[in-house]
């Protein structure tokens, strides 16, 4: 069944996109009757998505900015 969304490579997905697709794959495998072939493909994509989510989480660094009026500058702890 062709999806409305074009399939992006896993490496280009944001955390939310990857997680959302992972949830969908789990739901599909739980309910739909897929052939062994299709299921295998979904399974592998799902594992790749999980790896991507993990990587994004592990690497994440809090992004901090300072606001004066309407001007945003990146925040550096040494200044304070």
């Amino acid at each position, binding site marked *: 069944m062709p999806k409305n969304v074009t399939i992006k490579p896993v490496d280009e997905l944001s955390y939310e996109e990857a997680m959302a697709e*992972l949830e969908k794959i789990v739901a599909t*495998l*739980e309910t739909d009757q897929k052939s062994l072939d299709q299921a295998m493909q979904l*399974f592998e994509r799902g594992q790749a998505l*999980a790896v991507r989510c993990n990587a994004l989480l592990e690497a*994440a660094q809090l*992004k*901090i900015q*300072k*606001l004066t009026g309407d001007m945003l500058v990146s925040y550096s702890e040494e200044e304070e």
Partner: protein
Amino acid sequence: MSQASIFSTIRWSVTDLTRRIREQLEADEMLQDLWVEGEISNLSRPASGHVYFTLKDPSAALKCVMWKSDAPRLKIQLKDGMAVEAHGRISVYDAGGQYQLYTDRIRPIGEGALYQEFLRLKEQLEKEGLFAPERKRAIPEFPRIIGVITSASGAAWRDILNTLQRRQPLAKVILAHSPVQGDGAAPALIEALDSINRQKPDVILLARGGGSIEDLWAFNEEALVRAVAASKAPVICGVGHETDFTLCDFAADMRAATPTASAELATPITRDGQLRQIKERRIILTSLMNELIFKTRESIFGVSNRLRLLSPTNRVYNEIQKLDELSRRSGSAVIHLFQFHSLLVNSLSKRLVALNPIGVLSRGYAILTRKQDGRVVASVKDATQEMKVRVSDGEFGVTKA
């Protein structure tokens, strides 16, 4: 002194009289829970840890004692000459023959007035519905942008930063620095709230570390409280310590006991939680896959089983098996029967050989047949002119004489 009392027969002991006075004082509710203001003098803190002092004003003095157990609660340094308000109850120190204020709390004189103002404003804004629970908005579970209003040089900011980095590093934080005490604080805080809201954050943290009611007073200023209530983004207020409540706490969408707690409340979904979620999904995926493979294998098994049961080879094997069964059950009986039949067949075949017509010929007998139709001549009347004679090793023709 009246005439009558000189002759009075009632004589009190000092103890009893003192006790009576004490009971009278203790029975007066107004004297059992009160605040009194005065100036400290004769302050004494002996080794026992208890605190003794006198509160005085121009025309009277009141002896006070504060027990060692209440002393740590003192937020201020007591000094002779200090103007304070003391809270406690009146009773009598029997042995010394004096009434005293048994003090449990002391605060600087200004504070009482501030607290009054706090209560007045709280009541007014409450009546307006500013603190109503229905006004409070839900805090988003997964904020992408978190606005923080606090002093950049304070411990509150450090604590919040550490907490957010640990819990949800995928978020983006915007700090709007502002002084958090003193006269200019309230207007600066309002300004910060406005500019942060222009960045459209998912949630705003309003934070400040602990302090006295005067230190925290900016967060009780009416204009700021109204600005918090009117904030476009939901506000989590984390000002002071556990037990400090400011009017901003009531006006905010959520109150946190400390700045750290405000950062925690802003991030219900934590990185650890997300990592766990992903792990769970992977386990589910794997077990679903395993299940599918198992089911497929099972159904293939099932089909091949049925095929095997129906095949002709199988039928043959079945029959052979039946025979084997039979022979096993019948055992020796079959073998004997077989031998008997063998013998029978042998002797029968011998007799058959003896009865063979060709065998008789070798004993000298001949077979006479008519030439025209091959019929055997068994009697004189059967004989014709031309006949054939068959002996054991061949035949020849004969003519009747």
